[in-house]
């Protein structure tokens, strides 16, 4: 006779042996060598179901909350700009759209009669987040040299370098891209300070659809301009 598999039987734990509370001895099951009891599967299925039931709401909460939390690069850039402009800032708007949402949007948009250019543009984007802040204090007179220096320092620590920096009058624009940008994806972070508003944007796109889109746009432009020439 092979070993008795008490552990796999539901009664095995409580009625290992006949006693006053449980007079019946647990039935013994003989296990053929190499065969796993079906109770193992049942237990695992129950555990996984329970885990999913507990996790799904948590995942949903995290997923919904993630729409309102900016990506780390955007946060670093925003903090750098805000730190170098003393005063209070009020958040007006902020959203973070991840890959899953964009995929869903692409899927949804494919059934609509949206402008084909908009559909193509959506294909280029993999991830994006944007936030708008308003300066609450009476006067905004930032030292743009300090803003650039602080933002450069913070972004360099994250492996980003400034590719564009423009200051003209009260307008300020800084664009950062990863120092080692390789492969199909292209990423950039932008900060725009204009009047009393600060806009920070971060986006990651795929160069493949981007190239297709750009080519199409170029052709359209050429066709339009040649058409105009013909009319003139």
């Amino acid at each position, binding site marked *: 006779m092979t070993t008795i598999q008490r552990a796999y039987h539901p009664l095995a734990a409580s009625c290992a042996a006949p006693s006053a509370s449980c007079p019946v001895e647990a039935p013994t099951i003989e296990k053929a060598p190499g065969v796993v009891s079906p109770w193992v599967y049942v237990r695992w299925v129950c555990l996984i179901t329970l885990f999913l039931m507990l996790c799904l709401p948590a995942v949903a909460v995290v997923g919904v909350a993630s729409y309102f939390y900016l990506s780390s690069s955007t946060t670093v850039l925003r903090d750098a700009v805000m730190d170098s402009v003393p005063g209070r800032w009020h958040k007006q708007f902020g959203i973070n759209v991840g890959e899953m949402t964009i995929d869903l949007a692409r899927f949804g948009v494919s059934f609509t009669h949206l402008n084909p250019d908009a559909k193509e543009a959506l294909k280029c984007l993999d991830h994006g987040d944007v936030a708008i802040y308003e300066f609450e204090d009476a006067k905004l007179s930032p030292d743009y*040299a300090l803003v650039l220096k602080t933002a450069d320092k913070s972004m360099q620590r994250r492996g980003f370098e400034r590719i564009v*920096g423009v200051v003209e009058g009260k307008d300020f624009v800084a664009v950062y891209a990863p120092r080692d940008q390789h492969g199909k994806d*292209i990423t950039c972070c932008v900060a725009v300070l204009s009047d009393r508003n600060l806009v920070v944007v971060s986006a990651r796109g795929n160069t493949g659809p981007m190239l297709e889109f750009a080519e199409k746009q170029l052709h359209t432009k050429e066709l339009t301009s040649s058409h105009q020439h013909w009319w003139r």
Partner: protein
Amino acid sequence: MKRFMSCILGTVILCAVANLPAHADQLLPGQVDFGGFSPPKGGGQFVEVNVPTALINLASQIVAKDEPEVAKVLDGLKLVKVNVIGLDDENRPEMAKRAQKIREDLTGEGWTRVVVVQEKEQDVSVYLKMDDKGAVQGVTAVVIDGKDDAVFANVVGNIKPEQLAMIGEKFNIKPLERLKIHEGQHEHQHQDNADADDKPKEKSSQ
């Protein structure tokens, strides 16, 4: 095992430390470090554009079908850097000094001055860096445009000075678009330059 782990850790830290300054200081052949610029305090114009290789490649792929010749030029580029600083009474003398220093440094580092234009308040110098085989490694332009702005541009890669304007046009960099150097002018200046032993010459052109 402990000794092995500390060896690995030590090697990793050493590599990281050794790599950091090297990465920060390493300049490509034909690249010029103009140093940092600050926006003018009077609220004047300040533009800094730094187009890395990845973006140049992207631009090249975009125009490859329609403008293969432009794409060919872009393929030879590694970096485009342009600084435009608006001039005011406060920073004008400093910028003029800086432009002069950059010119001297370039001459000292083996750059050849191929274009010199000094008329009225405009002062344009274009320098070319070539390797031993005669291939162009980079072009640098230093411009003090009257009382308005100073432009420092450096294009790294195989490019001719007369193609600078085209690069400006393709990347929408207005100050580079303004640098329209004609092929004849470039060669003429190049000859003048060789004869004059790199002495600045007054030349009215454009």
